[in-house]
């Protein structure tokens, strides 16, 4: 099965990439854009029968795939 993980910067963390992209979007004809936040998208292929998939995946999201100091994550199946 395929599991998707979205990692996004926390609201309090400066996201200069997002700001630069927002400015570019405004410059290219979409002044309506208020803000852009740039995160990461991971596609993970994993065995269907993986035991305790949810909790193990969450552990790895917390310890490896995201840094809880600066990022939030969401697992989408």
């Amino acid at each position, binding site marked *: 099965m395929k599991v998707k993980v979205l990692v996004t*910067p926390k609201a*309090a*963390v*400066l*996201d*200069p*990439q997002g700001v*630069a992209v927002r400015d570019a979007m405004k410059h290219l004809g979409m002044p309506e854009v208020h803000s852009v936040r740039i995160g*990461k998208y991971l596609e993970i292929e994993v065995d269907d029968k993986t035991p305790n998939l949810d909790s193990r995946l969450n552990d790895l999201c917390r310890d*490896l*795939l995201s*840094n809880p*100091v*600066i990022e939030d994550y969401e697992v989408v199946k």
Partner: protein
Amino acid sequence: MKFAVIQFPGSNCDQDCLAALNGIAGVRAEYVWHKKTSLDGCDAIVLPGGFSYGDYLRCGAIARFSPIMASVVEEARNGKLVIGTCNGFQVLCEIGLLPGALVRNRALHFICDLVTTRVEVADSAFTHGCAQGSLLRLPIAHGEGCYFADEPTLRELNERRQIILRYATADGRIDASANPNGSVENIAGICNREGNVFGLMPHPDRACEERLGSADGLKIFQSMMTTIESRRQQAA
């Protein structure tokens, strides 16, 4: 006095650290490959700068799981001096030996420059060879050196005097113009609560000879040596 310089795949200041340390009388620095699991016999541990694991995922995110890191954590918990410069600082934050995190520079650029930092705590294990408020000229070279910590963490860092170095102007003022990367409160280097783990974005390893533009980095390594020596005498 033996310093262990940890080498991760992608470290690129390991040689700078080794050369700088071996240039100091009384120091013997040796590489320790990240797949090793023991740090027995060393007096201090250095996590050098570079791009461990290509900075994949986040800077330091994968290096923190290297086999040697279990020993680094254990030795740190036992009170051994640990210094992480640049990528080494990022690894120390990722593994949780230091609070906060390092994110993309505010201006997005990779910055390579010689900057001024101010010694905020002059009685730490890493800076007691410096006067309070004295200025150290140190090189920086990073793309992700913007220090971030949430409000409660920042308050604690200030209250416990864990902020060791801040970016400063040439005349020692702490203001936005001196902040190269957007770090909160101009933070350039912090230590842990116990005071034996120090992380900083600048490179003292690249500032140990006047002909490199500054020898101020020596003050940090020499402070470490004095700390180690006085601990030995206390133990004896």
